[in-house]
């Protein structure tokens, strides 16, 4: 079946089985390996992508569900070589260690800041509680999201 969708700002069409998992389409068919898989069952958040701006788990979605939607993966967050403010904050504040949770964590944070541009630390923790990180202890991730919310706030 042919599926049309918008991927990181460009319209694309792919021929695929409608039941194929979105994480496999991204990683295996389209070579976008920035989206990670860690549990395959909706428990870790490593496979998070944005669907029409909202964070979704690509390991639980199938091709049919993205038809006609706007998909953003971690690769699409970088525009013209410039990192998104959340990505920059992750780098500056030491929120990245092994980095395997990072793409999902960043996209979850982008979605969180869209819904709540100035969250408190506790709100950030709650907002990211669906994403597991085994390395950082979360504190520097919270620092990064807090800083990103300050920076975007300044621009508003």
């Amino acid at each position: 079946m042919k599926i049309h969708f918008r991927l990181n700002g460009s319209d694309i069409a792919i021929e695929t089985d409608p039941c194929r998992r979105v994480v496999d389409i991204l990683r295996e068919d389209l070579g976008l390996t920035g989206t990670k898989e860690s549990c395959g069952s909706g428990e870790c958040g490593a496979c998070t992508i944005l669907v029409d701006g909202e964070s979704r788990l690509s390991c639980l979605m199938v091709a049919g569900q993205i038809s006609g939607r706007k998909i953003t993966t971690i690769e699409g967050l970088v525009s013209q070589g410039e990192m998104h403010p959340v990505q920059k904050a992750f780098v500056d504040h030491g929120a990245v260690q092994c980095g395997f949770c990072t793409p999902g964590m960043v996209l979850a944070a982008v979605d969180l800041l869209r819904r709540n541009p100035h969250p408190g630390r506790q709100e950030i923790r709650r907002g990211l509680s669906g994403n597991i990180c085994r390395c950082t202890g979360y504190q520097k991730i919270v620092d990064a999201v807090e800083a990103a919310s300050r920076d975007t706030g300044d621009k508003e």
Partner: protein
Amino acid sequence: MENQIPVIGRSQPRFDAKAKVSGTERYAADYYPPGMLWGAVKYSDHAHARLKKVDTSGAKEVPGVVAVLTCEDVAGANRVGIPPRPDQPVLADEKVRHRGDPVALVLAESKEALAAALDLISIDYEVLPAVFDSQEALMPGAPLVHSENENNILHKGKILKGSAKEALKECAAVVEATFRLPRQEHAYLETEAGVAWVEEDGTLVMIVSTQTPHRDRMEVAHALGLPPGRVRIMAPYLGGGFGGKDGISVQCFLGLGALHSGGRPVKIWNSREDSFLSSTKRHPATVTIKLGCGADGALQALCCRLFLDTGAYASLGGPVLTLALEHAGGVYRIPHVDIEGYCVYTNNPVSGAFRGFGATQALAALEQAVDMLAVKAGLDPLVFRLKNALRRGEESACGPLRTYSTGIASCLKTIMDHPLWLEVRSWEKDAPPFKRRGVGVAAVLQGVGYGPVVPDYANAKIELLEDGRIRVYSGVTDMGQGNASTYLQIAGDILSQRFGDMEAVQPDTARTLPSGSSSASRTTFTYGNALIKAAGLLRERILQRASLMLMGAAYTELALLPGRVRHIPSGRDLPLGLIASMLDSSEKVCVYSYVAPVARDIAGIDENFRNMGYPHLIFSYGAHLARIEIDEITGEVTVKSYLACTDAGRVLNPQAYEQQVHGGIVQSLGYTLFEDFQVQKGEILTTGLATYILPTAVDVPDLLSIAVQEEEENGPYGMKGLGEVCANATFPAVANAAARAAGRRIFEGPLTAERILEVLAEEHKGE
């Protein structure tokens, strides 16, 4: 950051962060070579059984299946593991010894074909009696996990000093308790993964998620029957390791697959369920402690019995036991000790290396006993610890002298002066309704490096490239701790180059030099020391050639600057690219081999025990404080505040340092409170992240980290290993806090809500 010369001691973002945060870094799991096949393993259906027949005919008929391989297809020794006990089959031959034992390897065009084929492999077993408890496995007549052995003991060890049993009788206060520590799963986010192929010249090449590429190369070659020179292993950045990728996971499957794929590349990426089933775990431990002090509060005697369940294969069980015993006396001066332990085979999952490497379990027990003894002797737990804490030059509980930096007293004093401790009584009293509050402390240590026998070396290699940039060839895996970035920091400091002018090559047995494993709190210590020297040699060479190019200008007239050498008197700049063009390729590379100093103690130390890593010479130290609240209704424990004081020598990059401290604490908080890898009669009941509960962002408070920066003279820039010591204090600190809050102690981890409610209920029974 890319435009700055790194400064030692100042916080700076990690060099590897940008590619990771942009999704462009390629991990082993991210390779999908064209024409590849998928591989996956059929695991045993029993915890202990003789293999009578493995029928692969049905599986082979599944469309898309290219090969179904069994032990008969393994041309080499079909064994992996560390000498002296490489006892783990690549594919089970005569027996299966735990549920995670691999029996067959399937290669297929698609994951669907793979799954169908795995289901169709039919195995005929003769089920054997099995043993699932380390102490039962020691009983006469217990089923033998390895029939060729006389008993189930993998390794045993003893540390005797003075006469502990008699001394205990003389003590003014004595406590005795048995602690049970759970099995912990590493749960790195990137499950075991890799790709492999065979080159035209017959070389087997793999890109795999491993902490030990150079050692793997030897093991793969031996197991599969290839000359080591025909195996090349590359270890890109790992999506986490923590000890779980110290040694062979999927490497031999990848290699075997690639040798039977008809020339096609093979990819294996374990599902989370297969990862849980087959990967190594932290050893479950039973630790019995008798500890006594005199009327003055000085520790006098320690008796400790320690049993580790090492599961079906040796893995690193021997060294883990050795370190557990070495750390069982903690950070203290104790004149009389009698420590004995056993690392025992069972038909459970294989236990192996895990951050802390046995010290974690021993200290979780000891530090609780120390608190119990303080209570019994009527002493403040912090004053009690400080009074008994080792100072540099003193004899440790085990015997060897502490001849190098020993900062535990500073760590304890830092806690003592901190508001979180000073205001503790009033904070405890202010507990809200239906909550109970408690504060706990613990003091810990971790040996740095491999110990006295296995050479603890690193070979640094650094190159001036054609374009004048600097390349560091890292021989040690970066599993997330950031050592590659630290290496660039060191090179940049010595060569005055900016991050943006440098690059790091990740371990590759064909390009980087053997430098040991990414483990044992040695990664920056050992390679960093080698790199300081190698970078110094390159600096010298660059200046020397610049001097010649400037008609013999004196070194004092030259300054090495980013991308160039300046001749100060004339203001003339020589670009490094130009200097590189004047060097022969053999001159552009500098290497240096560093071997870490080791303990020279031999008196009274059993040779086998020494071979396994006892004793260490250099230790890192830490003291942690946890303030916790117990919910009387739900039994839930919440950590309200947490302070970690660490002596890991000088700090090279405070941001990276804090990363380790935070991560170590939270990983161990999971160990303390929720992580419970359930295995019943060898059956794995915990099959995924739905039932294996890891800490999330809401489960932890903001953590405070203070570095007690005592210089370690052997360390690069005065540093010592950090990655493990920060993970050892959380269990006992939180358990001590919980015991205070609940008024009773729980002797079995993790401290789940159910267990807390049970002890609270006991209290009512008592009333």
